[in-house]
């Protein structure tokens, strides 16, 4: 049974009651335009683990799985949903204290009118870019920080949307004690100003506010200073607000957003009393065959949790999300050093991205055209001048800062560290009717000390990828990847190869190997040398209808898995894998 024995039973009972008393009778009497549809999905990832001393994989259980079953009932006037999660024997890396369990943690009922929507139960929400509120589910990272409570969305007139919500945030199989309330207004001014429409302009103004109420008496944070014993006087309320403006003129779009929050002493910021802020400016241009994105962001002390003592390294209790201005890479070696947004320490982040389509039947475009994509990201520390004699690097650490204002920071001044930089060039071209090639080069500078708390400073990589697919027959495609990562730091060079044979519409066979061919890590010690090992994988995938079944065997390297700048550390693993997905 789960760590929380009440939620699953209560939720199942609630859902059963709703289904039996409300939905099924309605379904039975439904007219064509009044019918109830049932949809859902199953996702189950399983591992039969094996120990492997070479790569550090440990078998702790005979069978591990992360399994989710979603069910939705939909009607034009209402909607209900629930999710069963079975995480009693979770996959390696999902070993946070409290993660284990099973039950129905997600359940909701939503009533809908043309101009209003009321949700009761658990729900996900994002205000603006998420700088002050973003609750979401990301299974690959073990994140589900939904709110349990109520949410009202009103669209009383064209161009106006109002949201109000309240609830407590999910933390694994419990809900944190803090109450979150919030409101969001979005005004589409172009709906009210015909002059804007005439000039093909859309102007949206948005404003949000989130309040956290957390009883200061719930936590006693002792501080020992100069031989005397103190407790922190903690704030009962933390308020955050966000203002944004989004202007679209023909092919151009500009978004400016600023958020701020009041003093929020919490574990993640070392219990400092300091306002947080985030500013974001993003400009994009898009027309057929050409796209451009330029954006910049500055954040300072904006980590925000619904539990001030939260010490999870897995983003539990996180209220907000700061978007990463770096690409999420899909190629194995390009994703070897992924960036994690530095929400606590703050960062200056810049991104420029250009996409261009060389037309067909031109010198560069060839017979079928060619696509070029160039991305440049740069993330830098903000300036921080610490109080209390703390230098940010000093022995003694953050305990010296608890109860102080932490640090001061000049808005436009950079700190002395580069956190991340990459230049990414991708070319995609179809050479013949049957052959397509993607080429990629990435130059990367990765501050492994800041991002992974691992010695080594800046890791400088050059990464080369060639990805070709060849249609062998009408239903048969062979795809081959070759990748090379070159670096003098950390674990040195890596090489990766993959071959994937697709026999449409049902079968796919994949073989891959990642080999650490470098030997440059000066910090590796005897007995811990993990270089020169092969991380091989063999996968067979079978698709039929909405079912997808994948079986495999292989090794997975220890590393961090990131999505949108949010990461989870995954240990080395080896064994048989089975994955099943079904949508209905």
């Amino acid at each position, binding site marked *: 049974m789960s760590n929380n024995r009440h939620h699953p039973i209560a939720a199942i009972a609630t859902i059963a009651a709703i289904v039996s008393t409300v939905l099924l009778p309605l379904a039975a009497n439904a007219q064509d335009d009044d019918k109830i549809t049932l949809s859902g999905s199953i996702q189950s990832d399983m591992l039969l683990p094996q120990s492997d001393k070479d790569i550090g994989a440990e078998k702790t259980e005979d069978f591990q799985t992360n399994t989710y079953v979603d069910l939705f009932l939909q009607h034009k006037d209402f909607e209900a949903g629930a999710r069963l999660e079975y995480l009693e024997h979770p996959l390696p890396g999902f070993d946070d*204290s409290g993660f284990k369990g099973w039950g129905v943690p997600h359940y909701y009922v939503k009533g809908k009118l043309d101009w209003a929507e009321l949700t009761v139960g658990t729900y996900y929400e994002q205000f603006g870019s998420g700088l002050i509120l973003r609750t979401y589910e990301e299974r690959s990272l073990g994140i589900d920080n939904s709110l349990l409570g109520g949410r009202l969305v009103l669209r009383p007139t064209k161009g106006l949307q109002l949201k109000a919500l309240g609830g407590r945030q999910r933390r694994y199989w419990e809900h944190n004690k803090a109450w979150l309330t919030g*409101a969001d207004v979005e005004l589409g001014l172009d709906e009210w100003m015909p002059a804007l429409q005439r000039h093909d302009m859309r102007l949206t103004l948005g404003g949000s506010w989130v309040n956290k109420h957390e009883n200061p008496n719930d936590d006693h944070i002792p501080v020992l200073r100069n031989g005397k014993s103190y407790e922190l006087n*903690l704030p009962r309320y933390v308020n955050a607000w966000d203002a944004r403006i989004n202007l679209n003129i023909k092919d151009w779009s500009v978004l400016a957003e600023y958020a701020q929050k009041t003093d929020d002493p919490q574990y993640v910021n070392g219990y400092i009393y300091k306002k947080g802020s985030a500013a974001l400016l993003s400009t994009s241009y898009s027309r057929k065959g050409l796209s451009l994105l330029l954006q910049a962001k500055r954040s300072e002390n904006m980590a925000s949790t619904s539990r001030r003592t939260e010490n999870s390294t897995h983003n539990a209790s996180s209220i907000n999300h700061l978007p990463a201005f770096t690409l999420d890479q899909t190629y194995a070696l390009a994703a070897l050093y992924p960036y994690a947004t530095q929400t606590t320490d703050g960062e200056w982040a810049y991104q420029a991205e250009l996409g261009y389509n060389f037309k067909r039947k031109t010198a560069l475009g060839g017979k079928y055209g060619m696509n070029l994509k160039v991305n440049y990201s740069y993330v830098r520390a903000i300036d921080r001048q610490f109080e209390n004699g703390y230098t940010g690097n000093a*022995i003694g*650490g953050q305990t010296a800062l608890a109860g102080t204002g932490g640090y001061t920071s000049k808005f436009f001044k950079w700190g002395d560290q580069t956190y991340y930089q990459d230049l990414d060039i991708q070319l995609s071209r179809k050479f013949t009717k049957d052959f397509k090639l993607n080429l990629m080069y990435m130059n990367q500078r990765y501050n492994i000390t800041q991002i992974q708390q691992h010695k080594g400073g800046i890791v400088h990589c050059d990464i080369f990828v060639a990805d070709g697919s060849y249609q062998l027959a009408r239903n048969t495609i062979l795809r081959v990847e070759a990748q090379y990562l070159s670096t003098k730091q950390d674990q040195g060079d890596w090489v990766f190869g993959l071959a994937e044979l697709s026999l449409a519409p049902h079968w796919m066979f994949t073989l891959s190997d990642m080999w650490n061919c470098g030997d440059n890590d000066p910090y590796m010690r005897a007995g811990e040398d993990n270089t020169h090992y092969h991380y091989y994988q063999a996968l067979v995938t079978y698709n039929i209808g909405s079912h997808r079944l994948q079986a495999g065997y292989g090794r997975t390297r220890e590393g961090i898995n990131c999505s949108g700048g949010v990461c989870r550390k995954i240990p080395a693993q080896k064994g048989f894998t089975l994955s099943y997905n079904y949508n209905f």
Partner: protein
Amino acid sequence: MNKKTVSLLFYLFALLPFLTACSEISENERLVEVQPDIAPQPDEPEPEDSAAIDSLYEAPVEAVARRILIEDHTGQKCPNCPDATDITHQLAELYGNLIIPVAIHSKDLGIMEPEGLGNELGNTYYAHWNITSKPAGLISRMDGGAGVVMDKTLWAMATQYILQQPTSLDIRIKAAQQKDDATHAAIDVKVICTDSAGAAVNGKLQVWLTEDSIVAEQDFPNGQHQADYVHNHVLRTAVNGTWGEDVSVSGFADTREFHYDAPLAAGWKPGNLAVVAFVYNDEQVVQVARRKLNVEK
């Protein structure tokens, strides 16, 4: 919807933020001094010679204060672990030898023996307590409401709470490097019931050897590294097995005595070794004591 309703809704939303208050805490109100219920204790000096050790070992039975065992799960590659060590030092400054810290090094964020301070014993305890990140501590193995494994920010609070709890046990230790065999230590441990009402105490006696003043590398935040960090009270070995042995006393002054002949590994410095003995049950560590290994000069 008519314009009037829309306007009303809009104004109601605009007022929402005012329904809750702010909590502005001025700079000089952030720290509230609290008086610990247990007054700060001066650190008693270790007895210098075998006669003084014998005298303490054989002293009349009386009620004693409860001492705290801090099991500090730490690692040389754990940048935030020196913070936790700092907290144990501050607690020791406040409460003297009522605080008995033991630094348990293991594989996670550590360096294993012989290059480092991690050992299989540390790995076993780390796995047993299902610890997933360092630093992490057990404060007399008492459940603070969210399990026995506590984040370092809770250690001071837990310590202050446990120090107020009475104990029915005294533990006395006599430990010396053997005169005729310098590779072994003779360790005597007495477990004495001090409960005047005569209540029985059942549990397990665990005896560990720890070592102070080990100069070895240590990581710090932001990639800093110190090659000559001084590591204290590092767990070296369990003298009577990983989980100790049964002990039971009932009635005032009821005493059980244990004798051990503990081998000393070549790399350890006998003058820096200490014996830590404690009695624990399923709920907590009932009492703990520490005595430096007496080395004939």
